[in-house]
């Protein structure tokens, strides 16, 4: 294992394959992908549907594991962790923001934001305090007792971002975070993400198919047919 040093990236794909099925019908979602993500960077992952960008996001977020190759996260081989260890990795180090917000229905903003902390085993008072702080950071301190149904799309996405932030993650994985929002709300969300990256040094990897949204990131990686077709920062790759 590499000791985390100045030169070691936060995470790295080393010749990662992800295949489904077997024999003649085997399909490769990823075919030998390699790249590294440095701490504090903001990367946009683009590509047409079926290009492998979603699979990449799932492996990055430790929801999935490579069929072959190595996914190194903070120096350790995350692809070889068991289910429970990956759950803990997600809980401690990874925050998710989804296109469809994925908040729990009929559950208040505050309770939604607290959710990751419940699985960390924190007692209620500590959870409340941290969740309120996270809601303040996304400018929703006045909506803590609203359920998703009583919030606009933009507000729901802010709650989702607060939920991702509350566990003070190392990596924020955003999957089409503006996909369900109008231009105005999209810009607000992107401004929030950019600020988190610049001011707090949060590492962000964001999947999008919109060029103007991708433009907010400092690096672009484009996928095609399970391979990297373009990387604006090719020199930094493994």
């Amino acid at each position, binding site marked *: 294992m590499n000791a985390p040093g100045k030169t070691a990236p936060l995470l790295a794909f080393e010749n990662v394959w992800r295949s489904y099925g077997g024999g003649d019908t085997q399909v490769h979602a990823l075919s030998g992908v390699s790249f590294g993500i440095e701490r504090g960077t903001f990367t946009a992952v683009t590509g047409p549907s079926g290009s492998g960008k979603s699979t990449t996001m799932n492996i990055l977020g430790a929801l999935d594991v490579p069929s072959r190759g190595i996914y190194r996260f903070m120096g350790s081989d995350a692809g070889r962790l068991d289910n429970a260890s990956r*759950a803990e990795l997600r809980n401690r180090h990874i925050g998710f923001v989804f296109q469809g917000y994925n908040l729990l229905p009929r559950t208040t903003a505050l309770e939604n934001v607290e959710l*990751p902390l*419940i699985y*960390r085993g924190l007692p209620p008072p500590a959870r409340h305090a941290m969740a309120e702080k996270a809601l303040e950071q996304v400018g929703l301190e006045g909506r803590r007792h609203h359920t998703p149904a009583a919030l606009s799309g933009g507000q729901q996405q802010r709650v989702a971002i607060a939920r991702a932030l509350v566990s003070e993650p190392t990596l924020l994985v955003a999957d089409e975070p503006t996909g369900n929002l109008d231009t105005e709300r999209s810009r607000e969300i992107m401004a929030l993400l950019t600020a988190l990256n610049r001011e707090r040094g949060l590492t962000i990897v964001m999947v999008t198919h919109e060029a103007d949204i991708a433009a907010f990131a400092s690096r672009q990686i484009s996928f095609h047919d399970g391979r990297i077709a373009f990387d604006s920062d090719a020199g930094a790759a493994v």
Partner: protein
Amino acid sequence: MFLESVRLALRSIARNKMRSLLTLLGVIIGVAAVIALLTIGGGAREQIRAEMAGQGSRLIFAFAGMVRDPASPAEIKVQPLTNEHLMNLDKSIGQHATIAAQAETRLRVSYGARGLSAQIRGVSESYFTLREWTLKRGRLLSPLEVASHAGTCVIGSKVAKALFGTENPIGARIRIGHPHCRVVGELAPKGASFSGDQDTLALIPLGLFQIRISGRNELAQILINAPSEALVAPLKVRVAEEMRRLRRIAPGRNDDFQVDDMAEYMRQAGSIIGNVTAILGAIAAISLLVGGIGIMNIMLVSVTERTREIGIRMAIGARQRDILVQFLTEASVLSLLGGLIGIGLGLAIAWVVTAFMNVSFVPNLTAVSAIAAVSAMIGIVFGFFPALRGARLDPIDALRHE
């Protein structure tokens, strides 16, 4: 974490009140049946114990038994007990135990124009010492009255009510069949019991019964009161031996009489109650099983409905174990709730039934807590498969689920 699961479970149940209630019906009915049966059965047992204490667990009964004549098997002969048996038994074992006898028949008891059919019991001198008697007013028959075949009687509460209404019967002359007798005491009501109606009764001296009513020196029963419970068994053997001798039964021939004791009656009654309770309990257990399947079904529905929620929880760090615990908790909280409702319903049913049966209402706390635990267990057992199914979901598929 666990408290969190309980809170979540209650919330989820509250969101689907109607569905939860319908699901729980099986468990509720099962638990209510079990609790009602146990409580009613327990009350009945308690009643028997109380009667035993009242009537004496040391009592031994001897009475004539049926015997088939090997020569003509169709003919059943009953050789009744007589005063001679009583006297001889008294002679042989009277120094060890109190011996009494009774003769019985049903006759019309009347006072003026009013009358009713009652059990008439002729009793020997020591009869009243063998059982506890509670008088409403007056007194029991004195030994002198019994010995002198006096025309006096003690009447049961129903007889008193039928003949005298609310008036005091003491001193009144009533007719028992033909002969007259003077009422000296009225018994307190005993209520229906496992030994039958004890209130439609008149007690008269044995001699009066045999001379003026039956015209025979026959006895229905000889009662022997053992000095201690430990002596009941040996005394029974002794009585049986004595009876065989008195009735000249050749060795190898069957007894033509029976010797029982109170404890045995109570055991028999208790075992009948036990069997009935067991059979009904088995039916209740089947109902619980059906209830459990209902819970399994609704938990499968719940897991499917909340697939996306499971995906979200897993994405933000819930382990498989956390999801398993969440749904297991929900299932057991659900079935525990059913159990508690069932316990309440069962106790209510038992309360009504015991009131009607004139049996004491004694909730069995051990059984109640056991059944509460069992109903929570039902949730764990039948909720396990659905919960496991939820826990084993792939987070990516679960998140994609609409």
